């Protein structure tokens, strides 16, 4: 099971990185969002994997999964959500302002002559 989680995590990370490197804002943001999901699962996995023993203290159960990474993931999920929303809005505004959704704010044709920037 651990191996599968690792492999899945690796696959998601790889896809995230690939999307992150795209030239348009939308896939790039999807990549960021996916990357933060991967990071979340990674944090979670650092508490090791335990099935069926949530860290809710009661008199019957004696075993509990590690609660600390869970708390960290919760924080990370929420922060990741905020960041995704923010950068998505940024992408929307950049498109509105520049007319292009290229991550560099202009269509690649114009991009080939860097001299005209200065």
């Amino acid at each position, binding site marked *: *099971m*651990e*191996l599968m*989680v690792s492999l*899945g*995590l*690796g*696959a*998601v*990370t*790889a*896809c995230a*990185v*690939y999307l*992150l*490197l*795209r*030239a*348009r*804002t*939308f*896939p790039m*943001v*999807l990549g960021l*969002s996916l990357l933060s999901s*991967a990071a*979340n699962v990674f944090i*979670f996995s*650092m508490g090791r994997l335990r099935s069926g*023993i949530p*860290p*809710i*203290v009661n008199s019957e159960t004696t075993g*509990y999964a*590690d*609660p*600390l990474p*869970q*708390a*960290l993931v*919760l*924080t990370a999920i*929420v*922060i990741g959500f*905020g*960041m995704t*929303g*923010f950068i*998505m809005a*940024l*992408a*929307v*505004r950049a*498109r*509105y302002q520049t007319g292009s*959704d290229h*991550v*560099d704010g202009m269509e690649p044709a114009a991009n080939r002559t*860097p001299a005209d920037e*200065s």
Partner: protein
Amino acid sequence: MTLLIIILLPFFAGAAGTLMAQRRGFSAAAWAAAVPTAASLALLAGEVPEILTGEHIIVSWPWLPSVGLNLSLRLDGLSLLFGLLILGIGLLVILYTRYYLSPEDRIGRLYALLMLFTTAMLGIVFSENALLLLMFWELTSLSSFLLIGFWTHSPLARQGARMAFAVTGGGGLALLGGLLLIGNIAGSFELSAWFAARDAIRNHPQFNIALALILLGAFTKSAQFPFHFWLPAAMAAPTPVSAFLHSATMVKAGVFLLARLYPLLGGNLVFEYVTTTVGLTTMVFGAYVAMFRHDLKGLLAYSTISHLGLIMFLLGLDTPMSSLAAVFHVGNHATFKASLFMAAGIIDHECGTRDMRRLGGLWRQMPQTAALAIVAASAMAGVPLFNGFLSKEMFFAEALDLHGIPLLESIAPAAVTLGSMFSVAYSVRFIHDVFFDQPHDLPHQPHKPPRYMKIPAEVLAVVCIAVGVLPSYTVAPLVDVAARAVVGDSLPFYRIALWHGFSLPMVMSIVALAGGSGIYWLLRNRYDVHLHVPARYTGRLLFQHAYDGSVALAGRCMNRLQNGSLQRYLALSIAAFIGLGAWPFIQHGFQTGRLAPMPVGPLGLVVWGIAMIGALGMVWSHRTRVVAVILAGVVGLVASITFAYFSAPDLSLTQLAVEVVTTVVLLMALARLPQATPRESTTHRIVRDAALAVIAGAGVALLSWAVLTREQDSIAWYFLENSVPGGGGHNVVNVLLVDFRGFDTFGEIIVLGMAAIGVWLVLAGMRVEWPAILPKPEANGIMFAAAARLLLPFALLVAVSMFLRGHDLPGGGFLAGLIVSLALLMQYMGEGLHPILTRVRIDFLVLIGAGVLLAGLTGLAGMMAGRPFLTSANGDLHIPFLGDLPLASAVAFDLGVFMAVLGTALLTLTALGQARRKSPEAEEGRPWN
């Protein structure tokens, strides 16, 4: 203390005074500058008798002992000579400046800068601490920069200023390096300590590097070939500045430095060889070029270069008398060159040009000026009875006395004679072309210069003659103590006199005078020097090309490297992270742990399959963006199931809710973006990105695999043990969030709130506050609207339940906030944003602020009780007949979290919803059809 006053007086009294006095006119400003300078001079003069006895004074105040920087000053013969020169000529320059400047010039500024320079220059000559010396050294470069650029409107001035600063300031940094190296070797920066540790320093392996750096500093400052080019360019400065800085004083700083360090450096073969070679080359080269300058100041500049070379040559030689000659010539050159500059300034001032091709016959209009110039030029040419002759004679003698310097030994006598001939030639040209030749279209008829403008030059001319005729009664004692400060007491018996009998140097002088006059005659009549066009590849032009070229190159480099491409930045960053992460495993190898893995169930396989398909599908289909959003939802769902399966119900719930909100946010953004991604990546880029992606993915997989197979040691037991007794909750994750690590959560809701504010800010200009026509309720909308309305109260109920039980069961403020947000989102979607916003008038910003404030105040409550921030309190409230109601202060904190999350989600959704869509239909396209 006197020394310190001498140094600081010009700047602190003079600079401030002149700036204040300039409103009252030029004379007031001049007095304000002159009085402190004169005071300094008087103070210094007071020290003369003591120094002439051979004493020297060292005073020291600690400043930064750990750095080795102390306020240590030294007054000995050498610094006395230089000090008198600086202050004396300075005083004359102040007077001269008063009449030189035009009424529109800001004389206060010029004086203030001159005063700054005076202080800096005095600082150099009086420093006993090498670092202190360097500080003043760089200050002279800075003030020189500002003085050359005084006429800011002139491109030549700006260029000259920059060039001078680049060369001398850069040399100063090299000098810094050299001094630091020696300081480190010696363990101190006090010069006396260096001299004491002379042998240890010179035997240190780093000594040669230090020497090279020091020489670099000295050569740049004293305009030695090939660093000479800044000095002619510096002639764009006002003439008083040229007279003061660029002939008499600042350019002598390099020479001074080597003289000052002579006890340490002298006799070192490298030092001797390099210095003499560079000096001699500079001397001949400068003199040669000077003959062909048409500009008076240009001629004088190259002449200065030549004479500096001469002094440098003398300093390099390892004989006591050569050093004496060097010191002597410093003084002589200062007097005649300053005088010549002043004369040139007067001519320029009265005729409107400095071009010798146009000037001529001024003997008649300004006989006094002509007489002054002839005296000074004769001194420059080395004519007997003038001071220049004396030192030049010594120079010839030294050049004939080179022993043990292979090549130079044979070349030097010829070279010095040749150089002197050139020197005579340009001196003759100066006098003849200006005062006796015929003028050619002068800009205006020359008139008599003001009386007081000539006085400084006259004083200097008198000095030239007095020293030339009666050396023993004038400067001989001063030169003697100065030379002794350089070479110590090894000075043999000698006599500075006009007549030493008929000797080889005498012959050389005669040859030089005759040959020089002959050369001038040839230049005039056979070669017609007035038609000469200066060479194209001067050092100055080369520098300018190099300068412009490197600025452009730097700009181009940056445009290529820092090219504004996020893709490149990200790729490089990811590659860097991969390298960093992989490095330890390359060093130490990769090891998995020994923990037995959990068995794989069919369920695991299925979920794993969904994850793989979802993630890979996102990559595969990312061009059709809405599909990528769907698949992102799938991946989120898998994450949620994973959390649920591996005992993290809180995570699972939060992930689910967040995923839904994220999907909606992504779609709302997508509605304002193109619907499809064009195919534009080159194969090369795709391969590169895929490679990075696969490696990064593999890395993360390996890291997690390595940890998942290892035994775990952790502090986590503490939370399980203390959650109920200390935190008052059974849900350890929630207790962690609101209590053990409540501080994280406090920061996190602030992040969240700011993210929403960011969304609001970013979209501010796109906002449609109120649509002109409210969209009509659509028939097909009633399905969703009805469901949304019906679900609202139940969703609120579920939220309340999740919130209240959160401390003991999965749930809590985050989740409740998200559920309420979703419930309201349903209303937005069902009835439209604006109708709902009018009915639910919540200011989300206030909600966020209130949430943060509530969380913060809950934390502060603990402080009121004398406990740290965020200390929780909990207990059971007993209600009769009903039972115990568990209460924890953390619930209030969680309420703050709830409010902040709610405010954030709603603000984000509202801001996105209100943002204008640019012609949605036009952009919609239908890529998926």
